[in-house]
């Protein structure tokens, strides 16, 4: 009996060892692995350097770069203290972080008081003097560095002669078309740098340098605007500009990650209630974040039925781009309770009525421009064939879908959630127009994606996902763009057209075939 039991368990163990422990050569293995063998695959790419590979520009999202005051060097964004979350933000910090409001200037004429100087690679939060780091863009840069790109401004590794990874830092509070004009200058500057390097290293003059872009979150909106309109501003008459695809002249591939192409609901909620970035960080009051032009430009587009009236949920959606709605419902900058913050933002204005006028003027300008921006971004248009757009979006986290507004109090509450990355709905990333309530079997979208990757990850988690790193590297390094394919025609494998067919007649003479 004892022998039988031992034999039985030995047989079971042997079966398990033989069938389940390895997937190598197995037909039956159902193992799902967390990590790929990307390191091995990437080796030749890491070693390669040359014009055939497009340089890559990395564009961060909202809150994604450190900002400092140009005049005094004070860090405006990038380090927050836990103490601030208990005592509240100090007045100077609120003033420094705000964009300046003025009745006499348009949004883009308002002078910059801060410069973006680095990625928010990690957000440092001081908890009782002990720094805690929220890893933000470190992972994205690591993926690219491991793929063989060389980050601008860092020491050149052995065997590399020039930079190929260009981080674009911009003031994420500023108007997006304005930032697109800065991106244009940044591209031209680095293009000239690379042309010089290619001439020096390979003897190639005036090489047509094309960039690939990896853009996270709001960075994707900025990049898409740039592709469509280049450095052109929105028309002053509030009309929708004509799509020229001016930016596509220098761009081959655009990889957008967790981008709210059709906006996201949390912008509205935060503009009304204030913003808390993470646990241990202070709350940023509505009037302060209400000065950030970008907030309005990322609000859910009209037609997605994101904000509805509580007493009429099947009626017309709330026009969140209408300033009168904000004034009527006492939202954000139009909320009279925000006057204490307005006093900090407008230290020279003593009269509360005048302060409110300035704030409402700024709100009107911001909403008008945001509406124009969102309209310009939802015109259905196909990019030139030589530009490829890829989307990486999350689909596994409950994300705010619909909010109901109390018409009397202005209070807003989220009543419906949908699949997304926790911040951005999958349907917004895809710009799936079926969210208007009319479902069709296939997606209706103003954006022509060449490829979409849906990942079970949160907004920042997408970047950390192995699926993202494998496919992003593949898209950037392995898949040739149309322009790269044309250039690659000069391949040692394409020799068929060269081969002479003549026969040799002797004495150095060939027949004339």
């Amino acid at each position: 009996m004892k022998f039988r039991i031992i034999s039985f368990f030995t047989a079971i163990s042997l079966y398990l060892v033989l069938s389940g422990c390895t997937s190598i050569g197995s037909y039956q293995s159902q193992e799902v692995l967390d990590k790929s063998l990307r390191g091995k695959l990437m080796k030749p790419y890491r070693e390669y350097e040359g014009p055939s590979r497009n340089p890559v520009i990395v564009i961060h999202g909202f809150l994604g770069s450190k900002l400092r005051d140009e005049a005094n060097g004070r860090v405006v964004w990038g380090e927050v203290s836990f103490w601030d979350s208990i005592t509240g933000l100090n007045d100077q910090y609120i003033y420094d972080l705000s964009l300046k409001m003025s009745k006499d200037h348009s949004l883009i004429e308002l002078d910059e008081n801060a410069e973006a100087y680095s990625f928010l690679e990690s957000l440092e939060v001081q908890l009782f003097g002990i720094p805690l780091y929220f890893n933000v863009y470190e992972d994205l840069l690591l993926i690219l560095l491991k793929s063989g790109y060389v980050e601008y401004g860092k020491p050149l590794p052995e065997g590399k002669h020039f930079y190929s990874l260009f981080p674009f830092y911009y003031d994420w509070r500023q108007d997006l078309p304005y930032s697109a004009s800065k991106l244009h200058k940044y591209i031209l500057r680095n293009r000239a740098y690379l042309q010089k390097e290619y001439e020096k290293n390979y003897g190639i003059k005036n090489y047509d340098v094309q960039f690939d872009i990896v853009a996270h979150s709001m960075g994707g909106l900025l990049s898409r605007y740039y592709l469509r309109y280049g450095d052109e501003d929105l028309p002053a008459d509030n009309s929708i500009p004509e799509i020229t695809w001016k930016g596509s002249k220098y761009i081959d591939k655009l990889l957008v990650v967790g981008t709210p192409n059709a906006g996201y609901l949390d912008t509205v909620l935060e503009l009304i209630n204030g913003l808390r970035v993470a646990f241990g960080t202070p709350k940023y009051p509505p009037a302060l974040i209400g000065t950030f032009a970008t907030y309005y430009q990322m609000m859910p587009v009209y037609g997605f039925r994101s904000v509805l009236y509580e007493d009429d949920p099947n009626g017309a959606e709330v026009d969140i781009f209408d300033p009168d709605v904000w004034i009527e419902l006492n939202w954000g900058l139009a909320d009279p309770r925000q006057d204490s913050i307005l006093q900090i933002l407008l230290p020279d204005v003593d009269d509360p009525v005048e302060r409110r006028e300035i704030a409402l003027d700024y709100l009107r300008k911001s909403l008008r421009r945001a509406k124009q921006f969102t309209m310009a971004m939802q015109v259905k248009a196909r990019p030139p064939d030589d530009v490829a757009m890829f989307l990486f979006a999350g689909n596994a986290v409950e994300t705010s879908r619909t909010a109901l507004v109390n018409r009397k109090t202005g209070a807003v509450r989220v009543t419906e959630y949908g699949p997304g990355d926790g911040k951005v709905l999958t349907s917004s990333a895809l710009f799936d127009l079926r969210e208007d309530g009319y479902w069709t079997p296939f997606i209706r979208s103003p954006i022509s994606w060449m490829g979409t990757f849906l990942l079970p990850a949160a907004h920042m988690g997408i970047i950390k996902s192995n699926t993202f790193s494998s496919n992003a590297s593949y898209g950037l390094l392995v898949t040739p763009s149309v322009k790269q394919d044309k250039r690659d025609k000069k391949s040692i494998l394409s020799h068929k057209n060269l081969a002479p067919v003549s026969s040799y007649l002797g004495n150095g003479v060939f027949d004339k075939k």
Partner: protein
Amino acid sequence: MEIVLLNNFKILPVIFILLFLSLSACGVKNDETFYRELDSKIVKAYNSSPRNSVEVYVNSMKILKKSETDNTITGKAWKLKAQKLITISCFFECTQAIDKKLYLQAYIWAKRGVKRGTVFGKVGSVSLKSLYDYLNYSGIELQKTTMVKNSNLKKILQQIDHWQ
């Protein structure tokens, strides 16, 4: 008889010159025959099906080596003809090796073509420059292949120089 010879002594330089010229002519004739014989072998190898481009290369190299020590106009002309044939035969061998994924072999043929080939002339409608440029570019590209990188450089160089 001696007197006659003495009388003819003045014309001895003329006789020597004539002798030299006739010997030279004979030599040219011999070299020309040498070139022609190899060339006929090349015609046969080149036009055979499948083309024997190794044979073309070896015989062209023989012509080239001979022509390098031959400073006559004929020698110079055959040198260029040989270089042409070397470029073409190396191109054929290199591309065949590439198609078979034999990148080390392809590299050696590309380097042979670059080392001893020419950019001047045409093969039918194809310019020699395009073939030479292809070999040059292939040499650079093939150098990056694992087969070439993992091989002994000294041995590769020996193989490039070896032709018989």
